[in-house]
């Protein structure tokens, strides 16, 4: 396997970017929650979190190829892939060791090399199997399958378990033991990861590496293909399970679908999820993902921003106290400008993920339903809106919960605690404006991007003004302004959606998503995949 093929599978730029973000998150987490100093927290990131995260990327690259049925038929593919993986591990280990030697000269490089090599090779054993035998196990496995948000927590846990203060002296005392042990472990792991029996097992299950397929984000046909293949596999896994056909509510009991939008919404929901074991699992997975996202990603990032911008140490109680202020939807209560700015960084992170999630389920109608284009537009729009509210409500609730803990922990009680509708409005305001910007039928990308940026800036500025003037007489007009703009934006979005559905290709993948992201659809339409077979 040539380096270029392996690099295409690996996609090193997004891999490095995402790994760096989460390793940083792990460092921030350890500083905020357990008071580690900067040096210790970055040593944690470099020694534990980064190798594990990069190792997951390397493993994902290999698994992307290994989890295809044809991989077993490719001559000598396993050996070549293992060799490429070995080289990648060596390069990453060397890079981490060099960085460590530069940043932490007191830590012996051979020991760092050994630990990094072992941790980089460890994720190759990830089996990426969907366990269908037990519902609880299934949920648990998928919880741990949410690797990226959890890596910060796992890295921190490992580091705390090993004990930062004991680990470094041990590395100094017996560096070559760490080196030899790490190398042996890495070699063993790679050998095991590419064993013939593993290969056969992997070939039967689909897996799509996030990095190898990141371009698919701009290609709904590929995303839909991935989703269908995974969903089909999940259903196959489910076959033979005693609950599979006896789950109450699984059957469609509506004798005749009525003409109302609500009736057709039911149709879409049942088609998408059903009242099934698998369907409820999909619901649970989304819910868990959002909650985990709130805690494992956004909050450390928020804390990190607080600490960074305020140039001061930020303890657990202070962090949670500010969190309480932030999540009370009264951003005016957050005193410093730095905290205020970081609040918006966090808010936008929420928005980005929830926005993507809400649209992710809008990919395409699964059937050619006997409804007019007008009604399909109405149903799809309502569905997207409900999903957006649902997706925004969960992080909002998570923040409220965190705020409550923060108040209890810090003893800093705020009168404005818990105004979820206002927080929801703030959070919904930005994605809705962004939706409008992306749905605008602007002829050139050169016009779309500035429009998108301008609307995002206006949205942020308006939301920020509401917070700044939270205590002043301007509070009411600004709040009304936001409400009116949001309502107007929604109306505009509805017009765009309806216009799109009047002419769109209902056979193409992502027919529904394109109603909301024309900016992307222009790009997609150039791809031959969007052309149905004649």
């Amino acid at each position, binding site marked *: 396997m040539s380096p270029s093929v392996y690099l295409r599978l690996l996609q090193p730029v997004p891999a490095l970017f995402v790994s760096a973000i989460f390793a940083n998150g792990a460092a921030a987490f350890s500083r905020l929650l357990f008071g580690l100093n900067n040096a210790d927290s970055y040593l944690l990131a470099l020694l534990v979190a980064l190798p594990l995260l990069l190792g997951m990327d390397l493993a994902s690259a290999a698994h992307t190829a290994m989890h295809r049925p044809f991989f077993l038929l490719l001559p000598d593919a396993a050996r070549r892939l293992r060799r490429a993986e070995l080289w990648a591990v060596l390069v990453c280990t060397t890079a981490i060791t060099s960085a460590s030697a530069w940043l932490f000269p007191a830590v012996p490089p051979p020991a760092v090399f050994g630990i990094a090599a072992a941790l980089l090779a460890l994720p190759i054993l990830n089996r990426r199997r969907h366990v269908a035998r037990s519902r609880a196990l299934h949920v648990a496995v998928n919880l741990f399958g949410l690797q990226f948000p959890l890596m910060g927590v796992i890295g921190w846990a490992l580091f705390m378990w090993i004990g930062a203060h004991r680990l470094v002296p041990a590395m100094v005392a017996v560096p070559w033991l760490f080196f030899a042990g790490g190398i042996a472990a890495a070699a063993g792991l790679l050998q095991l990861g590419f064993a013939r029996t593993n290969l056969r097992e992997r070939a039967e299950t689909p897996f799509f590496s996030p990095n190898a397929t990141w371009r698919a984000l701009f290609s709904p046909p590929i995303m839909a293909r991935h989703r269908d293949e995974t969903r089909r596999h999940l259903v196959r896994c*489910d*076959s033979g399970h005693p609950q*599979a056909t006896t789950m109450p509510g699984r059957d469609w009991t509506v004798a005749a679908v009525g003409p109302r939008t609500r009736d057709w919404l039911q149709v879409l929901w049942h088609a998408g999820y059903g009242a099934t074991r698998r369907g409820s699992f999909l619901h649970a997975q989304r819910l868990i993902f959002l909650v985990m996202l709130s805690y494992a990603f956004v909050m450390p990032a928020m804390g990190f921003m607080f600490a960074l911008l305020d140039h001061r140490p930020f303890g657990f109680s202070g962090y949670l106290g500010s969190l309480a202020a932030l999540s009370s939807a009264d951003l005016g209560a957050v005193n410093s400008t730095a905290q205020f700015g970081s609040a918006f960084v966090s808010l936008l992170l929420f928005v980005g993920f929830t926005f993507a999630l809400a649209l992710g389920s809008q990919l395409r109608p699964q*059937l050619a339903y006997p*409804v007019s284009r007008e009604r399909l537009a109405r149903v799809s729009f309502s569905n997207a809106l409900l999903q957006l509210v649902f997706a925004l409500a969960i992080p909002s609730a998570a923040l409220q919960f965190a705020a409550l803990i923060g108040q209890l922990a810090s003893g800093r009680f705020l009168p404005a605690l818990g105004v979820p509708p206002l927080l929801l409005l703030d959070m919904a305001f930005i994605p809705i404006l962004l939706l409008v910007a992306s749905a605008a039928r602007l002829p050139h990308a050169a016009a779309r991007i500035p429009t998108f940026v301008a609307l995002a800036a206006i949205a942020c500025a308006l939301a920020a003004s509401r917070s700044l003037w939270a205590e002043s007489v301007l509070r009411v007009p600004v709040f009304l302004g936001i409400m009116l703009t949001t309502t107007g934006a929604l109306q505009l979005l509805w017009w765009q959606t309806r216009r799109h559905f009047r*002419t769109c290709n209902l056979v193409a993948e992502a027919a529904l998503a394109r109603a909301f992201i024309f900016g992307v659809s222009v790009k997609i339409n150039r791809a031959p995949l969007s052309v149905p*077979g*004649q």
Partner: protein
Amino acid sequence: MNIAPPDTLAFAADRVSKTYPGHIALAEVSLNIPVGHVVGLIGRNGAGKTTLLHLAAGLVLPTSGTCHTLGRRSDELDSPELTRLGLVMQEGRFIEWMTVAQHLDFTASFYAHWDRDLQRRLIDTLEVPLQRKVAELSTGDRQKVGILLGVCHRPALLLLDEPMSSLDPIARAHMLDVLLELLRDDGCTVIISSHLLDDVEKVVDWIIALDGGRITENSALDELQESFAEWTVTSPAGTLPIRFTESFILTQQSRDRQARLTVRTREPDAAERFAAKHRVEITSRPLNLGEMFPLLINRTKDAP
């Protein structure tokens, strides 16, 4: 097929073009399909057959020109028309987690007149596994489910896009029986796109051939069968011209004292006149649709 009054048309296309970026799927296609006909849509891969069926179903809209399905513009099709329309796609979209029985119940709820008897009979004859999940079905069984979902509401217009490509010969025969039953009982209009020309020939009464997005043939099957023939020409004197120049000859292969010609002519005495002119003996054999196919799609103007 451009003579019926508009209210008796199941589908009409007027100068319809459909283009995709860098690709013309259909170019200036005009045709009228009267109610009650069974139309075979034939053509090579990429000829525009699926696009034409999707246009008829309103799933895609023309880039230029207009389409009318069951009397209504295809971009305005609503429940009254859509519930009279059946579409069976080659690779149907299904809801994978449902069992076949659940999927049938789900789809039946969209239609006021779902024929449970027909459903039961089809399940029995096609041997559809009701309790298996759609995701677990073989390609052939998925196609059977697609057929069930497409015909059990007894549509007035049935669009079939390669409906039998994955069926075994027995299932194909049953499928043809179902089609004939629908035609006999309901006077259903059927447009069937298929490469299985032997099967198509058994049920259709009209042929539309497409090539490169253009219609190259639009004729009754009877008429085609009467006009296309293969002549085996033998010269008793032992000499044949190097090439025959009659305009109704489409292809010719000569060997020694014998030549094999494919011809298209409606003149009943064409063979006698040809034999007299060239002093040859002729044995004539009609062509089946499979043999006509390359001639239909390569020809861009009508034969005399």
